[in-house]
């Protein structure tokens, strides 16, 4: 029996050395995985031939430039307080960021949950509070719960700028990318807590790709990668969970019901990947009164991404952070050019902070 996480990591590294006999390229889809992998230096333990590339798993990073700009335009209005998770604060829009807008007088508050944003609306009845609803399936149910509460309690000065995106459809786009030529996906742990395993079915069924949900500790990630390699070795592909304590096969039904009550599937624009059908959420008509785009009459306008920034290519797995000419050069966590260097879960930020000996 192996008990210590460190022993488990080393045992898995040793098992991988015996299992990997040809080039294998997997993608980790979750930003929290990306950070954990860089921070723990797992790549240094991989045998030759095994590579793990980061995907579009940082919600702030995949938020399209035009969506960031919409948020910034709302922040210019004196009657609006923007309530946002802290990660959005320094993301550069076409001309400024929320942090800069705040320095110039905009009302921007960092909240730790959607519930705090609603509380802020109750405490400031003379202002409109717009919550920047960013995040994947892990986060969107909280937005849904709070929106239902606002509706129930008739809080009229609360609205959501809906930036939520959903994961399975974008994985199909990446699975079909012949240049990327992936061998499988390390699936996100907590998105899968909500979704369960079934929504990933097309990845093995249509594209023959092994998929494994993993937890976030280094040993849990190594277990997930080992399962991916075992599927390849055995010539099978399916969706497996190496994180059963947090992921039921059917997901979190209550959270999914909340999502279905408030949202419906919609197309969404992803930085680096463009418009992807069924990869976003929009409010059902009954909740449009809480839709900030409707209430304040704005729509996302075409926007320019920062010159030279290759976040889009990083998010799509086309290059690794070190492949961007701006990386650690003009673009650092102190002077970020693109969102992947801003967000604590961005691949570039993780590579900068932890991965200097880890060039790919």
């Amino acid at each position: 029996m192996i008990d210590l996480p460190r022993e488990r990591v080393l045992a898995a590294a040793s098992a991988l050395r015996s299992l990997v006999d040809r080039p294998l390229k997997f993608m980790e889809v979750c930003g929290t995985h990306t950070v954990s992998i860089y921070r723990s230096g797992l790549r240094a333990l991989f045998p030759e031939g095994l590579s793990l590339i980061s995907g579009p798993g940082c919600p702030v990073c995949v938020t399209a430039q035009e969506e960031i700009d919409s948020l910034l335009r709302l922040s210019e209005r004196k009657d609006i307080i923007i309530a946002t998770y802290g990660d959005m604060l320094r993301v550069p829009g076409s001309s400024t960021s929320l942090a800069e807008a705040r320095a110039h007088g905009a009302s921007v508050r960092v909240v730790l949950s959607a519930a705090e944003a609603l509380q802020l609306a109750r405490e400031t009845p003379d202002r409109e509070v717009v919550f920047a609803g960013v995040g994947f399936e892990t986060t969107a149910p909280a937005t849904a719960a709070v929106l239902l509460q606002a509706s129930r309690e008739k809080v009229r000065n609360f609205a959501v700028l809906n930036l939520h995106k959903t994961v399975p459809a974008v994985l199909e786009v990446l699975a079909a990318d012949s240049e990327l030529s992936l061998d499988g996906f390390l699936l996100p742990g907590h998105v899968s807590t909500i979704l369960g395993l079934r929504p990933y079915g097309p990845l093995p069924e249509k594209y023959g790709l092994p998929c494994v949900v993993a937890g976030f500790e280094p040993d849990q990630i190594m277990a997930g990668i080992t399962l991916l390699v075992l599927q390849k070795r055995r010539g099978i592909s399916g969706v497996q969970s190496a994180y059963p304590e947090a992921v039921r096969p059917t997901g979190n039904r209550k959270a999914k019901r909340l999502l279905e009550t408030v949202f419906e599937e919609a197309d969404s624009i992803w930085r680096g990947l463009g418009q992807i059908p069924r990869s976003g959420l929009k409010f059902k008509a009954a909740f449009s009164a809480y839709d900030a785009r409707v209430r304040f009459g704005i729509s996302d306008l075409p926007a320019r991404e920062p010159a030279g920034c290759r976040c889009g290519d990083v998010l799509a797995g086309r290059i690794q952070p070190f492949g961007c000419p701006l990386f650690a050069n003009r673009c650092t966590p102190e002077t970020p050019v693109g969102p992947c260097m801003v967000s604590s879960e961005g691949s570039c930020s993780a590579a900068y902070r932890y991965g200097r000996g880890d060039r790919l």
Partner: protein
Amino acid sequence: MCLAVPHTLVEITGPNTAIGRAGTIEVEIRTDLIENASLGDRVLVHAGFAIERLQPEEASEIDALWEEIRALSGTVQHD
């Protein structure tokens, strides 16, 4: 962003609220997303909301995987 931290529910404060403890820290969390939140539940908390009740009994599946990994690791010749 999809970071979630295990908490133990130490007080149920309302139909959709509870106090969760992680280490020595106690925070108010929302329980809208889980069924029948109860005292003593171990839950994963993300952005202020409990997103799932942790299921320790399921860990045995993973123990079997680690046994397999250990067996495989023994097949490698080390320098």
